[in-house]
């Protein structure tokens, strides 16, 4: 393992201290491990809280700020946070209009947020939850834990966050989050495994000429291992899976995320985006907005995920609304 760390067990605490030092616009509660906006939540505004294992930066702490999250709860690396963290976050940022939990569909995240929602309700805080499960690589059936939540999390946080900023009520913000999730599909391919600081070695071995198809956002292997192919063919595989699940017609408008998993240079992500743009253009599908970069990473994993959201006019308008966070900023 070759990492810029001091000690594996100190990584999260020291990274949080670094975030606090780098971003005075954020308030980091080191004890409870909560990252919140320094200026707090406006009274009457619905508060958005998300969280999950660390190692996916900028998710979620990098999306705390105007127009997106009010707070983020980072767990240990690839381990969901604990209910006490989310409760502390809810108490810290509740503006009186209730709290929306944005939860990626991983068993640990779901169980811990569920417990936190019960604890918050006991404290008199109204909580709604949006479960993000956009990953089409996983069969949504009784035979698995259900689809994983991946890249669409950024879309849900941005669009629901913008609606909350406009003053919508909790039910409305939650409904929009669910709509964005329902309209989004993702697919990912890994070229290497990643190495968690605690284990010190790659989560799986992947030969130089092979790729792992259909990975989530952790070190966990995907659904199949195949020979590495050119970007054009990888994109075709991903888009086939996405469009088989969410058919899009000519003229449909989309928001597309081409997301690096942490170990892939931007030049390769642009190669991928070029293929995505060409493939969708062939079908007459419009990329109305896009993001290309590292937004939902898996530590040092090389690879890419592609997320396509079939966006309506409301979503596009909310997408364009001002946002001011460490990792996403425009119009503000």
């Amino acid at each position: 393992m070759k990492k810029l760390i001091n000690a594996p067990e100190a990584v999260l605490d020291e990274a949080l201290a670094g975030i606090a030092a780098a971003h005075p616009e954020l308030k980091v509660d080191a004890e409870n491990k909560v990252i919140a906006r320094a200026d707090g939540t406006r009274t009457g505004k619905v508060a958005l809280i998300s969280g999950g294992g660390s190692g996916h930066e900028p998710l979620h702490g990098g999306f705390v700020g105007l127009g997106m999250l009010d707070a983020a709860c980072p767990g240990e690396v690839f381990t969901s946070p604990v209910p006490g963290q989310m409760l502390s976050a809810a108490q810290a940022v509740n503006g009186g209009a209730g709290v929306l939990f944005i939860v990626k569909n991983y068993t640990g995240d779901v169980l811990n947020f569920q417990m936190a929602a019960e604890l918050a309700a006991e404290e008199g805080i109204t909580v709604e939850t949006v479960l993000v499960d956009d990953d089409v690589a996983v069969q949504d059936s009784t035979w698995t834990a259900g689809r994983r939540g991946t890249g669409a999390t950024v879309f849900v946080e941005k669009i629901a966050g913008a609606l909350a900023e406009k003053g919508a009520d909790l039910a409305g913000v939650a409904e929009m989050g669910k709509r964005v999730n329902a309209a989004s599909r993702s697919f990912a391919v890994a070229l290497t495994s990643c190495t968690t600081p605690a284990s010190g070695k790659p989560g799986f071995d992947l030969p130089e000429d092979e790729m792992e198809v259909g990975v989530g956002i952790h070190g966990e292997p995907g659904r199949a291992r195949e020979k590495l192919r050119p970007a054009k063919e990888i994109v075709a595989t991903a888009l086939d899976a996405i469009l088989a699940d969410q058919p899009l017609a000519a003229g449909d408008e989309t928001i597309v995320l081409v997301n690096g998993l942490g170990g892939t240079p931007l030049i390769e992500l642009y190669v991928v985006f070029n293929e995505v743009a060409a493939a969708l253009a062939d079908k007459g599908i419009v990329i109305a907005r896009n993001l290309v970069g590292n937004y939902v990473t898996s530590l040092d994993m090389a690879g890419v995920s592609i997320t396509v959201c079939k966006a309506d006019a409301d979503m596009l308008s909310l997408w364009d609304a001002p946002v001011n966070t460490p990792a996403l900023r425009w119009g503000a």
Partner: protein
Amino acid sequence: MNGDSVDTDLARTWVQAIAAAVDKHKDHLTQLDSAIGDADHGVNMKRGFSAVTTALADYKPDTVGAVLVKTGTTLISSVGGASGPLYGGAFRAMGKALDAPTADTQQFATALAAGLESVQKLGAAAPGDKTMIDAYAPALAAFQQHVGAGADFAAAALAAADAAEEGMRATTPMQARKGRASYLGARSIGHQDPGATSTALIFRALAEVVATR
């Protein structure tokens, strides 16, 4: 304390023995988890049970249940992942069923059943899904069967530990249907489940502390 009951000291010794076992086997748990999960089970369990050891150090419980509730609450607030709520909820459920200074084998069997019920309710998994339930359910059944046949605590706990380990080994050929391993589909076959493995450690620890008191 007679030979056929559990008191607060024994409950504490049990939990400390689990902590020692988890520490000893943490690399093995992580290695099993890296095959079909995300390689953090050993680390998470160690963090949780270290916190439990600290929490119990100066704790003066009145009941057996209080030890276990404290254990569960500490696990929930320190483990994270799915294991935190599942194990934490199980220990809390066991503890709530033992609201007395001592517990006999029959009461302990009832508590173990409450723990399993909590896991099943929260995780929505069934036997055969390749989870901790595949070790827990046979362990409980063996414990109940031995208690029903008039066995003493040590014999029942030993039977439970053996059954848990057998259940743990039986997860190897299963295809995972819950948790992160489920995403692997058929590729999860051939790997022993880390959760079933840590559950087997918990029952083995019980058998050992009861046998050596």
